[in-house]
């Protein structure tokens, strides 16, 4: 485009934007206000099936202190410049580091990355937004603190603040991350700095140990939202257990998911299996061992016979249930007995432990995730088809067998209509499941881009008609998903938005709120 900037914020003239940029430079220095196409290139790449230009930022600001952020929101209010905040900025498959709307200024907090505290006894951490799991992992290892992290599959390159603020999940007993969040510091649109919970109290030392504080619990409104900029974040860590026993249970038919879920649910609700169990379809695991092109060519979704061949060739189940036991040897022994008895009732279940499956690449990375060891092996998914297109379709399901089978079948059928494969898994919460499907397509192929977009749209429409909501979505579909939750929720979100951010400067469009 002509002009100085690759994009401009909606309703802001180049002249006004010039002034704002000059003032941002006054605060951050020349080097930390990025506007050239070259500097902004890493903020533009997304995996979504829409032109990258629709999510191109006008600028990126790299801030490192609360004071800088307070001044930045002051300028944004003055010139009505919208900012899109990222922490580690690796929201891959959900929009990456790119803003929700073209022209928004990215506020990049990656360099605000101090580990402020890790308390060994109380097992918690207080960190700034730019801290990665790798950084924290190394910090804990160097000091031999004996604490485990729970993280999403992009582990090393992502971070606890961004992941938890988007209500992401991991695979240890602390896998439902927001459940283990404890205390935030938030810069509000008017520049106020709020510490949630006990953090509001001068001299309190219980900010990271008691979640609720006094009065309304506010932390929730700063997740998946645009009501503030989180600048400090506390969360709990898991003391390393003396014994860790990962295992996988394989089943050979898609319908077996009913039996799997019915067997797992009581074990999970009763805490026998404490971690976020994953029930992964063969096509979610296959990319660690094979490529799609080895089995099929040409258009259309991969046929069931080919999937069956893959499971045979690569020692996979159609369903692969990854879980682990944690505790002392005695505890693990007792729980192992309960688990094997529960699954042993069926002749369909094949139970494998580290002894049998330890060197299997899928088992290996799953085991790492379940004990908080860094691995990026799950990115193998993108080699399945190639071309770097991906969207996470993430409906929530009851932990009930019939429900999971229904969700799986409907998803697979719709994907198939568009020639796309079912690369799905269920991540088992206490009573829910995050049904997570990687809608993989070739972003270099315009026809597949179109198909992927339409497919995703249909998935959302059909699922909401069935009463299934999605827990999180990429930035191209946020409004659509917000609508599925009905007008009153949108209205209340809007009332809060107007009260906390009357000029609408913070991440307009996030979760459909503006």
């Amino acid at each position: 485009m002509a002009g100085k900037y690759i994009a401009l914020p909606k309703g802001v003239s180049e002249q006004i934007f010039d002034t704002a940029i000059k003032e941002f430079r006054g605060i951050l220095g020349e080097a930390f206000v990025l506007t050239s196409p070259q500097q902004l290139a890493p903020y533009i790449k997304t995996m979504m099936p829409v032109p990258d230009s629709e999510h191109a930022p006008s600028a990126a600001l790299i801030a490192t202190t609360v004071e800088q952020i307070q001044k930045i929101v002051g300028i944004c209010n003055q010139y009505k410049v919208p900012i899109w905040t990222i922490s580690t900025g690796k929201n891959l498959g959900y929009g990456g580091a790119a803003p929700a709307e073209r022209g928004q200024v990215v506020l990049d907090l990656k360099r605000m990355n101090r580990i402020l505290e890790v308390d060994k006894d109380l097992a918690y951490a207080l960190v700034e937004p730019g801290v990665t799991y790798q950084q924290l992992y190394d910090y804990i290892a160097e000091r031999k603190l004996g604490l485990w992290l729970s993280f999403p599959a992009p582990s090393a390159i992502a971070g606890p603040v961004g992941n938890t603020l988007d209500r992401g999940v991991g695979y240890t007993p602390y896998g439902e991350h927001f459940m283990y969040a404890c205390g935030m510091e938030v810069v509000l649109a008017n520049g106020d700095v709020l510490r949630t919970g006990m953090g509001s109290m001068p001299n309190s030392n219980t900010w990271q140990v008691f979640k609720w504080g006094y009065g309304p619990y506010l932390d929730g409104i700063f997740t998946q939202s645009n009501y503030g900029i989180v600048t400090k974040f506390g969360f709990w860590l898991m003391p390393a257990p003396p014994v860790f026993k990962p295992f996988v249970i394989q089943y050979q038919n898609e319908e077996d998911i009913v039996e799997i879920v019915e067997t797992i649910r009581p074990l999970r609700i009763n805490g026998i299996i404490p971690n976020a169990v994953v029930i992964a379809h063969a096509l979610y695991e296959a990319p660690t061992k094979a490529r799609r092109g080895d089995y099929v060519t040409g258009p259309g979704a991969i046929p069931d016979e080919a999937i069956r061949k893959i499971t045979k060739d690569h020692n996979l189940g159609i369903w692969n249930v990854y879980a682990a036991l944690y505790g002392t040897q005695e505890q693990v022994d007792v729980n192992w007995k309960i688990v094997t008895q529960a699954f042993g009732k069926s002749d369909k279940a094949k139970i494998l432990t580290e002894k049998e499956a330890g060197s299997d690449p899928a088992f290996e990375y799953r085991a790492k995730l379940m004990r908080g060891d860094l691995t990026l092996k799950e990115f193998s998914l993108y080699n399945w088809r190639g071309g770097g297109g991906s969207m996470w379709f993430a409906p929530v399901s009851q932990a009930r067998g019939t429900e999971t089978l229904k969700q799986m079948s409907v998803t697979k059928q719709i994907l198939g209509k568009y020639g796309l494969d079912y690369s799905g898994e269920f991540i088992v919460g206490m009573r829910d499941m995050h049904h997570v499907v990687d809608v993989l397509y070739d972003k270099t192929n315009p026809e597949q881009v179109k198909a992927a977009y339409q497919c995703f749209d249909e998935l959302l429409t059909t699922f909401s008609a069935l009463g299934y909501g999605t827990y999180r979505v990429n930035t191209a579909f946020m409004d659509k998903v917000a609508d599925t939750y009905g007008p009153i929720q949108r209205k209340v979100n809007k009332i809060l938005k107007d009260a906390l951010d009357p000029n609408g400067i913070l991440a307009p469009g996030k979760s459909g709120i503006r």
Partner: protein
Amino acid sequence: MRKIILRGTASGFLLAGTVTVGLVANTAWAQSQNDSSVGFEWKDGTEVYAKVCGHCHETKVGPVIRGRHLPAAYVRTIVRDGLRAMPSFRSSEIDDTSLEKVAEYISKN
């Protein structure tokens, strides 16, 4: 056990001219703050390779990139722009100097 005292006057810029939000530490905290007050910096190209690139490029997720004498400029461009399945990395994640070092490391090792 380390203790942290967070003392801050949180006041809106609209209301107050000066704003102080500081971390004021007691002695135990001051000690631990020393090693973390600066934030994270990469030591050298080997570290970037081991802690970012290696997670994919030594595990068959991405192609082998060492020992191929890939031109450093090419490596730098791929890292900043990304390439299909490979995510892009921002200067806030890998600063320009560290990127030069890792690109050099890759082209020579």
